């Protein structure tokens, strides 16, 4: 790990959203979508973020891009703090990173031609002439496996998988170093899913990209990631290298998540072990460990204090009192 260059350092990131009150008498409430997340992202790696809906994984990605304003915490990009960046400085920071969105139907402007969609970020961010940009659009379309004449067409003429390719071409247009992919394959069919995943991996090799790959699908995350962080109610409960985390999950929540996935195995059929209960409301998260209301190994101290994220072994960090010495 030590020989790797840290691209992004995230310290105690918090993103809270105020909730509308019914009357002035009520206490002020906030949804703690991201609650104290600290993690380093290394250059060239794919960090997978998994969690169920409401775990704060999308907000986390957006907060890094400052698409939602973080409530507290610090983000260092190549050692430089970005929290106070504004205007031109912020734009300079943002043109190093791009986002790929989940819904390929909603993330492309239906009234723009594909050429214009891919051209727009370049026109805004890069000092290129119109001709140069046009040439680059062609190159990008070819890179993502679309025919050149696609640039004259509109988004509705493409299938979901093709649209996701267009979204990827747009993200690559300004030569970013870091790409946040928020559920990029969740809306696609399996046969198309693997095409897009392979494309993303090829492009990563070619352009030395760093990915933050957000998904609820643990099998997809396992396939593409180097390291995986598991989120529950806005907090990281476990983070580790892919191999270790999937083979020896430490946190009871990670264990539950993994055991909930159906598998194809007729020789040793696995009994699904459903987690009891429901995800607590992020408006009113449990005191102490956020998972204690559903944890099969809950202890007295879990209800009182919040376990910190600690290095358990060379490859894994976990936030759980079971592993406190």
């Amino acid at each position, binding site marked *: 790990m030590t020989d790797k260059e840290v691209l992004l350092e995230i310290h105690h990131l918090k993103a809270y959203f105020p909730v509308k009150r019914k009357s002035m008498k009520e206490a002020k409430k906030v949804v703690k979508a991201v609650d104290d997340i600290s993690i380093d992202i290394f250059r060239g790696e794919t960090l997978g973020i998994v969690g169920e809906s409401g775990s704060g994984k999308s907000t986390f990605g957006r907060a890094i891009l400052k698409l939602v304003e973080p409530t507290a915490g610090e983000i260092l990009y190549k050692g430089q703090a970005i929290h106070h960046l504004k205007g031109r400085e912020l734009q300079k920071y943002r043109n190093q990173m791009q986002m790929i969105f989940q819904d390929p139907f909603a993330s492309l402007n239906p009234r723009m031609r594909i050429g214009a969609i891919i051209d727009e970020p370049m026109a805004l961010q890069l000092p290129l002439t119109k001709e140069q940009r046009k040439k680059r659009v062609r190159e990008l379309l070819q890179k993502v496996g679309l025919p050149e004449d696609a640039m004259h067409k509109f988004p509705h003429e493409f299938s979901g998988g093709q649209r996701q390719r267009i979204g990827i071409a747009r993200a690559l247009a300004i030569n970013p170093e870091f790409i946040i992919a928020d559920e990029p394959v969740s809306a696609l069919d399996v*046969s198309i*899913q693997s095409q897009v*995943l392979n494309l993303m991996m090829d492009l990563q090799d070619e352009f030395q990209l760093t990915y933050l790959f957000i998904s*609820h699908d643990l099998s997809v995350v396992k396939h593409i990631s180097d390291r995986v962080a598991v989120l529950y109610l806005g907090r990281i409960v476990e983070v580790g290298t892919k191999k270790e985390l999937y083979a020896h999950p430490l946190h009871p929540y990670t264990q539950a998540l993994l055991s909930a996935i159906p598998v194809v195995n007729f020789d040793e059929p696995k009994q*699904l072990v459903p987690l009891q209960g429901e995800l607590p409301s992020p408006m009113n998260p449990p005191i102490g460990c956020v998972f204690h209301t559903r944890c099969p190994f809950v202890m007295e101290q879990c209800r009182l204090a919040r376990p910190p994220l600690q290095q358990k072994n060379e490859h894994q960090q976990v936030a759980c009192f079971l592993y406190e010495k």
Partner: protein
Amino acid sequence: MEQAQDKQVLLEVKHLHVQFHLKNGKKAKVVDDVSFVIYKGETVALVGESGSGKSMTSLSIMRLLPMPPGEISAGTITLNDKNLLAMNNKEMSKIRGNEVSMIFQEPMTSLDPVFTIGNQMMEAIRRHQKISTKQAKEKSLQLLKEVGIGNAEKVLTEYQHQLSGGMRQRVMIAIAMSNNPQLLIADEPTTALDVTVQAQILTLMMKLKKEQQSAILFITHDMSVVAETADRVMVMYAGQIVEEAPVRALFLQPKHPYTVALLKTMPTLETDIKRLPSIPGTVPPAYALPEGCRFAPRCPFVMEHCRHVLPEVTLLQHQHHVRCHLYTEEGALVNDGQRSIT
């Protein structure tokens, strides 16, 4: 199709053709010559990608197709020896929610937002059973408890927006099971749910199925869910069933190139490879189907014959059917002897 002696046929679909009349005058064949049987008490999975016609097949059984523009142009659907396609609306409404009931993918839109959960449950029960409101309420309470809702009395008085996705799907299941249906059609019941909730719902469905001995037609795109739940599997591609087999045979000895590819492309927790194999191209739209085999343009084993002639369904072994020229007599004549694809 052959019949096992000890099994009773519950539903039989024969040569079902469904088409949609498009605004530009074209016809889209969304279901094309689909035949299958569901025996009493078994779980049959219908898998396929979006646009393969799996939901259209199930809506045809329920007679819930939007008509027009949809049209069942040929075929028969018989449930317990009654021809569903010949029934009028009144007769059909006695079947729906009673002998056959359905749960949908999106629990948010399948419950009525202006009635309480209790209201909707009692309506479903009293529609098919002659019991008092009070008895219906008791039955609703008991059903909610069976599907694992703890504070059932409170939930009865609540509206759908007050419940989480998993809770809503539990309520939908409670309503669907309220009249002990012989056939439950579950159309992507867990697709909108998180994995941990999905595990809860699947376990619940299997438990109820056992208790009430209902048959389930499970429609999904997720092969691992199929492996965990189904007895038999039917794979659909571009409006046709391309392979049908008992679950074990389908996963261990898939025959159709599409099934083989589908199983290889899905990332699972076990696979540990750098690149996933993928199927090139996309599913053809229902208004522009290729002339011969539907899968021919994407098939790695395509022969010239496949591009012109649609293969017939071939029975390979007990309960294992496949629609592919690699296994037909006429295909064998033009094939140079390479019959193994796995």
